C-alpha cells in the first residue's frame, strides 16, 4: 500500500535515525512511502507568532499531500501530527479562516484536500498494519527486554480531536513492544512531558523536565526507553548528558525509537536503523537482545 509521508523539520534536520528506521521497516509490511514534492514546516513553531500563518502551513502540507493522489499521510513527528490534525478540525469548524486559507492556496495553484487520513507511526503499526502482522514478521524476538515507553503528549491529547491513543492510559506502543517479544512496564511518570517545547526559550527548565523523567526511568531498572517522536528523542537521547547535569544525576539510559527496535526484531542491520547515531548507550540494548 502506498502512503504519503510528511517528515517535518527535526527529522530531516538531525533525527536521521527515525527516517532511516521507518524507511527500512515499513517496506517489510508492504508499505511504500511516497515523499511530498516539497519539504516545508508544518507550522508548529509559528503558532506562537501567528496562528493563522501556522494554519496556512499545515493546510499547505495537506495540499502537497493531495498532489500525490494518495488518501493517507504518515506524519511520524508528534507535534506535526497534532498541528495537522488540529488544522483539519479548524478548517472544518471555522469556515471564514478555512476560506481565506483555501483562497491563498488556490492562488499558488494548490488545492486543499480535507479527506486525507493522517497516521502516526504508532497507529499505522497498531491499527493499520496490526499487531498480528507485526508479530508474524518478527525474526529475532526481543527476549523479554524490559522497556519504559514514552508516547509523548501531542499524539494522545486532546481527545476531542481524535488522537492516536488514549490520553490517560495509552497502551498501543506497549502492545507493539510486546508484539516484538519485549516487555513494557507501567510507571507513574509515564505521561510526563519531555520538555522539548521549552528549549527555545527556557533550556534549563526543558532539560530539567527531561532529566527528571530519565531519572525516574533509570530507577525502574529497565533495559531502555522507547519513544516515537523526534523532539522527545532529542531531549532524552541527544541531550541526556545535559539533562543529567541539570538535575544533578548520572544518567545512563538507552533511548531508542520504536522503529529501531522493530528493525532489530525484524533482523535488519543496526547501522541501517541509525543506531550508531543515538547518543545514549544503545549498545546495551543490543547486548541484551542478542545474548
Amino acid at each position, binding site marked *: 500500500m502506498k502512503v504519503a509521508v510528511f517528515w517535518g523539520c527535526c527529522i530531516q534536520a538531525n533525527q536521521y535515525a527515525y527516517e532511516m528506521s521507518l524507511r527500512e521497516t515499513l517496506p517489510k509490511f508492504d508499505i511504500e512511502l511516497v515523499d511530498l514534492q516539497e519539504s516545508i514546516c508544518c507550522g508548529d513553531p509559528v503558532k506562537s507568532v501567528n496562528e493563522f500563518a501556522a494554519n496556512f502551513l499545515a493546510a499547505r502540507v495537506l495540499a502537497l499531500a493531495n498532489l500525490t493522489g494518495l488518501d493517507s499521510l504518515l506524519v511520524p513527528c508528534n507535534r506535526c501530527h497534532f498541528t495537522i490534525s488540529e488544522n483539519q478540525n479548524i478548517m472544518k469548524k471555522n469556515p471564514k479562516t478555512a476560506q481565506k486559507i483555501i483562497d491563498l492556496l488556490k492562488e499558488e495553484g494548490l488545492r486543499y484536500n480535507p479527506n486525507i487520513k493522517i497516521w502516526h507511526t504508532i497507529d499505522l503499526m497498531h491499527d493499520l498494519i496490526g499487531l498480528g502482522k507485526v508479530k508474524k514478521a518478527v525474526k529475532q524476538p526481543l527476549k523479554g527486554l524490559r522497556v519504559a515507553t514514552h508516547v509523548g503528549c501531542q499524539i494522545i491529547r486532546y481527545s476531542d480531536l481524535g488522537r492516536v491513543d*488514549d490520553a*490517560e*492510559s495509552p497502551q498501543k506502543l506497549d502492545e507493539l513492544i510486546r508484539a516484538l517479544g519485549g516487555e513494557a512496564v507501567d510507571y*507513574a511518570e509515564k505521561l510526563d512531558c519531555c520538555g522539548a517545547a521549552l528549549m527555545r526559550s527556557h533550556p534549563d527548565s526543558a532539560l530539567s523536565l527531561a532529566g527528571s523523567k530519565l531519572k525516574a526511568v533509570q530507577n525502574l531498572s529497565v533495559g531502555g526507553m522507547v519513544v516515537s517522536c523526534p523532539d522527545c528523542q532529542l531531549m532524552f537521547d541527544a541531550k541526556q548528558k545535559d539533562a543529567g547535569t541539570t538535575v544533578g544525576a548520572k544518567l545512563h539510559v538507552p533511548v531508542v525509537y520504536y522503529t529501531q527496535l522493530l528493525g532489530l526484531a525484524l533482523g535488519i542491520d543496526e547501522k541501517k536503523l541509525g543506531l550508531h547515531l543515538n547518543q545514549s548507550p544503545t549498545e546495551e540494548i543490543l547486548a541484551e537482545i542478542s545474548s
Partner: protein
Amino acid sequence: MARVGVYVCHCGSNIAGVVNVEKVAQYAKSLPDVVTSKHYTYMCSESGQQLIQDDIKAHKLDRIVIATCSPRMHEETFRRVVAEGGLNPYLTEIVNLREHVSWAHMHEPEKATEKAKALVRMGVARARILEPLEKRKVRAEKSVLVVGGGIAGIQASLDLANAGFEVYLVEKAPSIGGRMAQLDKTFPTLDCSMCILAPKMIDCGHHPNVHLLTYSEVKAVKGFVGNFRVTVLKKPRYVDEKKCNGCLICTEKCPAEAQNEFDEYMGVRKAIYMPFMQAVPRVAVIDKETCLECGLCERVCPSKAVNREQEQEEIELDVGAIILATGFDVFDPSVVSEYGYKRFKNIVTAMELERLVSAFGPTGGNLIRPSDGKIPKSLAFIQCVGSRDKRFHEHCCRVGCMATLKQAILAREKIHGNIKIYVCYIDLRAFGKGYEEFYRRARDMDIDFVAGIPSEIHSASDDSLYFDVYDKGTNRLLEVHADLVVLGTELVPASDTQRISALLHASRSADGFLLEAHPKLRPLESVMAGVFLAGACQGPKDIPDTVAQAGGAAAKAIDLLSSGEIELEPLKAVVDTDLCSGCRICESICPFVAIEMKPEIVNGEEKPRAEVIEAVCQGCGLCSAACPTGAVKIQQYNNRQVLTQVEAALVETCAEGGR
C-alpha cells in the same frame, strides 16, 4: 347578531399609565355589535366583576370581551363571573393589554393606544363567533401506581394510603428502601439512615392500602389520566413470599457466592440471599445466574418456601394516577481516567465509603482500606468527579458537598489518632437548613479544606495514593499523600429512566432527569397529565427535599382523584368523521398520543377514523394544522375563529369603527 360588552381595565396604572383606556373604550363602542363599552380601574375586583354581571342582565349581553392583563392571570376568574352572570363561560374573550401592550411599549403611549384599539377590534371580531362549550367529566380510579420504592416512593405511598387511596408500589429490587437504605448516617443531623427509614418501610409493608410489588417492573402503560391500565412484570424470586419467614437458614447453607450489589459490589452475598437485614418484604430471593442448582436451599428450608419452578407473573392494574419515584444512580468514575478509579486499589466512590462505614456493611462499619484492611492514616476527598464537567455531566449533584462533609466528620470521629483529612473542592455548597452550621462543625475538626482539585492521581508501591493540588488560598502546590481517596461522584438518572420516560411519555430534561411541567411553579407534575414526579428522578436532591416533594406529589394525586371524577377543559381537538379520510397524519403527529384510530363502517366497509382521547388532548393544535381535509378542529379555535382576527388586524384603525 351578537350583543357584545367590552370592558377595558386600567389595571391600576399598569395599563392606564401607558394606554389611554378611555379612548380605547370609546373606540370599542364604535365597533359593530358592541352594545356597551366601559373602562374601569380593576376589572378583577369584586366591583369590576359585579359590573359585568349587572350589564349581562341590563343589556342582554351574549358575548363578553375583557381587555386586561394576560389570560394566564384571570381567564378562569372571568369565566366563572360570566357563568354566574348566566352566560356560557366560554363566550368570554380576554384581550391582553398589559403584557402585550403597556408593558411592551412603555415609552410609546400613542402607538400603544393604537395597538390596544387594534387588539380590542380583533377580540370583538372573534368574540362574535365564539361558541358555547361545556366541560366534561370522566370517571377516575381512586388508586395510584408508585414506581420506585426508595424514600420518595415510600413517603408518597404512605401519604396516599393514609388518605384512603389504594397504592401499588412497584420496586425493581427485591426490597424497598432504595439509596437511603445504603447510607450510614444522614446530614446534617447524623441520624442513622436505616433507623429513620426502617419504620417507614415497615409501615409501607403493613399498610392495608399499600400493595407491594417488589422484584417487579412496569412493562406497559395504556390509557389516560384517571384511567391508566398498567402491566407490571413480577420477576420470579423462586421463593414463595407467603411461606418465607426470613429465617436465613438457606443463605447460611448456600455454597454459591456473588458480589453484593447492595454493598456496591465490595462484599459477597450468596446466590439465595436477603437483600439486607432490614429488607421489606423480608423474603429471600434466588439469583439464578449465580445459582448452582444444587437444591440445598430447598432441602433445608423449614417453611418449604423455595420454589425453583416459580414463573414470572404479569399483573394488570387500573389506576387513576402515577407517581414516578425512580431515583438516581451513582456515576461510574472509571471514565475520569486521570483519577485512577478501578486502576488503583484504594480509591472509592462516596457510596462505596457509605457501605464501608455502615454497621451492616462488608466491614461491619470499620473504615479500612480495601487493599489490605488497614485503617487509613490519611484520607483525601475529591469533589465534583464527573459533575460540573462538560466532558461528562454538566449538572451539579447538589448533595456531594454535604455528603463529603458528613463522611469527613464521621471519619474524624471513627478513627482514633489525628489522621490527616483533606477535602479538595471547587465550590463548597452548604445551602440547606442546618447545613452551614454543619460545615462549620467540619471546619472545627482539623479537616484541611483545599480550594482546588488535582489534575491526576498516582499510586505508590504500598497502594497508597499521592497527588499534587494547587490551593487558591495559600497559592501553594500541596503534595497530598492519602491511604484512601474518596471521589465525590456525580449523581445520574437511574438506569431505567429512559425506558420509563418512553413508556409514560414523561419527557426528560437535557440532563436526563425527568422533566417537570414548569421548573418554578409546577415541579411535581410531569408533562403528561396524571403522571407526577417525586424525588431524585426529577433531579438529584437530599432527603428533606425528597420527602417534601413526595408528600407534594401525593397531594397532587389526591387532589386529582379525590372526587372520583376528572373534569376536562373543552378546548380540545374534535374530529368530524364525515371529513376524516383515515390518513392517520394526526395520530402520528400528536405529541401526547391523544388520537386513536377507531374503525367505522363507511358504505359497508370498515375504515379507520380518527378519535380524540379528550382526557389526554392538550389542545396544542398540531393535528388541526396538519389535517389535509380539515376534519380535525380545535374547539373555539377553528379556521373562522382565527382568521376573523387576522382580517380585523389588517384593517386600519380609524375614528369610526374599523372598516
